[in-house]
């Protein structure tokens, strides 16, 4: 890894990362603040008036919406959070390689004593830094501000949310990173990864409302992200860890191998 490149990368992305993190801190704090006002029986009554298909838009329809986990999943972590955080990591991933090539700055970087291996591994380290920062920006405020608003998550639950949230975003970010390492235009990784997330979201919705799409569920990354269940039950399927870690690993290996073999101008 190149420390110079890492510092330069984080310096150039500092405002991007800052605004995403600040937004997530504010959003998390706002949701914590909303819970005593919106949650409980009144909230359950409101939700029950909605069709099951609409509830399914925000994630697992099986979970009790009136519960703390159901509230967070429906209002925040089931959809909005995914959109915000995926935007952050996909943006980082596309700029890491493809945009550098498209803008011509890769030529300047790789004319310095910087090997391709160091370049790509350092940019991967940047992706790790990104997902850890935004996962912390999401879940630390819930843990810090929660007790003041009748939300008391155990340390184990917090670490599960933090860890799985980071790994989920690492999987998405790594996929975009892989496309970035194989492209010379930053728009392509953004478009393909966004389209893939949209397709998975539609797939997850179809699974909730129809048996027809059940066969696709194991291949849908979104179906393993069940923050409501983690908050309510303090447990989750080990499949989620394996699937996200597997997708991230395969994507990053392909990115590494592909980048080392390709033309970079």
């Amino acid at each position, binding site marked *: 890894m190149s420390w110079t490149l890492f510092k330069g990368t984080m310096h150039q992305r500092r405002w991007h990362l800052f605004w995403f993190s600040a937004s997530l801190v504010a959003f998390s704090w706002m949701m914590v603040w909303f819970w005593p006002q919106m949650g409980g029986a009144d909230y359950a009554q409101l939700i029950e008036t909605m069709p099951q298909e609409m509830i399914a838009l925000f994630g697992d329809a099986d979970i009790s919406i009136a519960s703390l986990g159901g509230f967070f999943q429906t209002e925040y972590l089931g959809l909005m959070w995914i959109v915000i955080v995926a935007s952050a990591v996909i943006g980082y991933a596309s700029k890491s390689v493809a945009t550098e090539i498209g803008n011509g700055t890769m*030529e*300047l970087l790789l004319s310095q*004593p*910087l090997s*391709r291996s160091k370049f790509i591994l350092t940019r991967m380290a940047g992706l790790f830094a990104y997902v850890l920062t935004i996962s912390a920006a999401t879940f630390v405020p819930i843990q810090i501000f929660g007790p003041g608003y009748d939300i008391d998550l155990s340390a184990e639950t917090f670490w599960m949310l933090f860890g799985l949230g980071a790994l989920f975003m690492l999987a998405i970010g790594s996929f975009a990173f892989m496309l970035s390492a194989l492209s010379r235009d930053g728009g392509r990784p953004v478009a393909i990864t966004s389209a893939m997330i949209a397709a998975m979201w539609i797939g997850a919705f179809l699974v909730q409302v129809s048996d027809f799409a059940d066969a696709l569920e194991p291949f849908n990354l979104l179906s393993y992200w069940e923050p409501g269940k983690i908050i309510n039950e303090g447990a989750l399927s080990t499949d989620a860890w394996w699937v996200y870690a597997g997708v991230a690993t395969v994507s990053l290996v392909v990115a590494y191998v592909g980048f080392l073999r*390709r033309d970079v101008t």
Partner: protein
Amino acid sequence: MATVIETRKLSKFYGKHRGVVDLDLAVEKGETFGFLGPNGDGKTTTIRCLLGMLKATEGESYVLGEKVTLDGSALRRRIGYVPGEVFMYEKETGRWMLDYMSGFRGGKGAREAELIERLEFDPSRRIKELSKGNKQKLALIIGLMHDPELLIMDEPTSGLDPLNQEVVFDIIEERVQAGATLFLSSHILSEVERVCARVGIIREGRLVADENMRDLFAKRQRELSVTFSDVVDPSVFGGVKGVEDIIAVDSRTLTATVTGDAVDELIKHLATHRVSDVTIQHASLEDVFMEFYRDEPIETAAAALGGDAS
């Protein structure tokens, strides 16, 4: 003498599109080599292959005695590269760029301050505020500040005013005198003529000439104009090999083209007459260059100068 740059049957294709084809090139230590050719004929492709940015379709390259690999980095510590088109991080300042690039080499460039002063560059300004010429200055400082053994430059004076071009040529010459090797790619003929002792001409991805600059000029035509003291017949040059296209401007003045080594015999022949004025105009590199880019097959152009278009 050590070979600093060597390519062996180097070919690069972009899909079906030709980059360079079967390029055999050798540049020795301390040489100043000009790589001439119009845009799109493979100069930048060659440089990018030498720097390990492009994967050669066939053949191989050696730089400073080491085989060029896509993942190499140690080699580039000894190379100063100035790209043809300068792309930098627009939001950052020149100072930030210099520090960032220096970071990859483990410290500030020994000649950074001197180059900033000589090129009158203001590093405090943001890249997006810089003119093309100032961006070029920054690229030159980045490429030269660590006293590299090998300078690879792709049209280094592009966008610079004549005064700064002179400064750049002076800096390059100082580096060459200090032992550095220069590989200068350009389509600006005066630039190559100014600093290079040897030139390779690339056409449609193939090297059609690789010659000493002096030899290259010697092989090309010169324009001769002679005014005799007495009336002469246009057949006065008859029998002098290499003197062609004789035109009688008036009864005493003749013009002709002189090719190759005919000058010596011509002078001796003229000495047998009373001559009141004589001018021999050397072909500029531009004239030489244009010879290669007439609408004729590559093989013909290469053969004209003893190059190898195979």
